[in-house]
């Protein structure tokens, strides 16, 4: 590895520096309204990335990702509530553990299913949870639960930044730069062949599924504390999964930066529509149109447009930073 960075690496360094400066300076330069929007954009970029781990890299379309987002939110709300009163920092790991357990129990049997069957099964699971949360008493039923309010926008902003950055870093390190990522892509492209090569596909799928679920649950936990009130529709609702799917499709399935591009773009569109029309129904129609157009005319997403140059520059800098380049890196 050369001592001085190459041109591509310079470009990447500059890009990385800009991202860091912008993300770090934001809380001190914009008002709370825009800070909330930035926090939301980071959450969706992170959630889209969590969905992309299984949907994009492993090729298993999960229509029930909101189940794990909601689990994280509900565990946090439940544990911070009356009988327990735990601090927020303690509820996140608790939510992660519960979600991981749940993901193993759900994932082990459902990941045997392929294609549409898997999509239906995960969707059914998320709907079971939403109906369960609506029917039970300890979840507050349809009414939902409130959390102790904590009015500090900067705190939530940095919580989202931290989680989102960690999510992207994990995705990059695990799926783009390790043997594990190669295994995942191999099983996506041809599962029987991957199996024949000695890859334990069942294990790899389950690991990816659990990772994706746990990531979503952390965002759910932060979201619950941030909005201070949750109900079954607001955290388990199918719309949440729908948005993640559309964001990833729009940005580019199975790419590192696709979910970030799609997530931020769609979230901003959502806010703009809300600002100018105050109408969420219209946004649903836009989501649908976006999916149809992307599938028909842009099957590789926005990131696919830059496929040739893609994110090499940024990748090379990241490589340099952690000093590795394993797995067919040029």
């Amino acid at each position: 590895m050369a001592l001085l960075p190459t041109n591509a690496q310079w470009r990447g360094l500059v890009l990385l520096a800009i991202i860091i400066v912008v993300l770090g300076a934001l809380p001190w330069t914009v008002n709370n309204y825009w800070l909330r929007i930035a926090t939301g954009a980071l959450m969706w970029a992170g959630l889209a990335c969590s969905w992309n781990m299984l949907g994009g890299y492993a090729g298993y379309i999960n229509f029930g990702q909101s189940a794990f987002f909601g689990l994280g939110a509900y565990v946090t709300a439940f544990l911070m509530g009356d009988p327990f009163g735990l601090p927020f920092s303690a509820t996140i790991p608790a939510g992660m553990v519960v979600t991981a357990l749940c993901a193993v129990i759900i994932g082990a049997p459902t990941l045997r299913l392929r294609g549409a069957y898997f999509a239906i099964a995960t969707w059914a699971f998320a709907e079971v949870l939403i109906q369960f949360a609506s029917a039970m008493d300890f979840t507050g039923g349809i009414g939902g639960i409130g959390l102790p309010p904590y009015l500090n926008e900067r705190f939530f902003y940095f919580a989202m930044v931290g989680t989102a950055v960690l999510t992207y870093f994990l995705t990059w390190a695990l799926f783009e730069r390790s043997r594990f990522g190669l295994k995942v892509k191999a099983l996506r492209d041809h599962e029987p062949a991957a199996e024949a090569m000695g890859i334990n596909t069942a294990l790899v799928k389950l690991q990816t599924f659990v990772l994706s679920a746990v990531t979503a649950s952390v965002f759910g936990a932060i979201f619950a504390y941030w909005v201070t009130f949750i109900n079954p529709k607001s955290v388990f609702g199918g719309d949440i999964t729908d948005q993640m799917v559309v964001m990833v499709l729009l940005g580019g399935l199975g790419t590192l930066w696709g979910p970030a591009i799609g997530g931020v773009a769609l979230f901003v569109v959502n806010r703009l529509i809300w600002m100018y029309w105050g109408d969420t129904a219209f946004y649903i129609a836009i989501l649908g149109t976006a999916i149809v157009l992307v599938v028909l005319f842009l099957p590789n997403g926005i990131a696919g447009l830059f496929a040739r140059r893609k994110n090499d520059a940024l990748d090379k800098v990241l490589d340099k930073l952690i000093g590795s380049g394993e797995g067919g890196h040029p």
Partner: protein
Amino acid sequence: MDLFLQTLLNGLLIGGVIATFTIAFQLAFGVLHVIDFAVGGWVVLGGYLGYYITAWLGLDGFLAIPLAFVLFGALGYLIGPVLYNVRNSRTARPELMALALSFGLFTLLRGGMLTAWGFNTRNVTTALSGESLAIGPVTVPLIRVVAAVFAAAIAGGLFLFLYRTRYGLAIRATAENRHNAALMGVNIGRLSANVYGLYAGITAMAGVLMGAIYSVNPEVGLRYTLFAFFVAVLAGLGSVEGALVAALLLGVIEAFVSTYVGASYSLLAIFTTLFLVLLISPRGILRRGL
């Protein structure tokens, strides 16, 4: 005992109506190999057509049935080839892309309907609305009986068409093995468009009936998509015969849970059953799925 009989009958009658569109759904899957998320959207659109026929033109809601078939059949005929092309395209994962497309279509229908008509619930009124029929100890709304009879006629006609005509043979051959069917001279592309049109038309007709029995709003589409998936999973994807049995079973399960446990638990029961069936027997309880 009377309550039991009443519930059973209600379940079977509703199951019959569900059967019409789930049979068509299975047929569309068998030929196009696309799980169509949009199915609930077609049901709701049919219901709205029925509503506007009565609200604007002052005609009987049932007159919307043939109109729904023609209108949505034509629309389906136009959309079918698009789905077919995506399903058979050279993109990396055509199956996934087709699934995403139908999902996008459903989201577009749902959002468009919500934007146009809001969250309000509408009823399809017919001459039979409010009338009921006493059969021994049980009474059923006449409209449910008529709807179920009508649904049975549609399903029967579809079976006759599939098993007694040359074109039906071509459809079954394509569902069985598209390559061999193509070699025997079947134009798969055009046949797919026809089948999707047939499916959309039948689904919209069932929607008019559903609108007359219950009511419609844009959000119930999700419920009907779920019903179609439930039946497909229970019967095994693509199994047309299994769909009839599974749809009746679905109607009965829903009716019994609603009556004996509580209406808020019926969806929970349906989803749980669906999930368990998928885990225990992914190819359907009849083991006929593709």
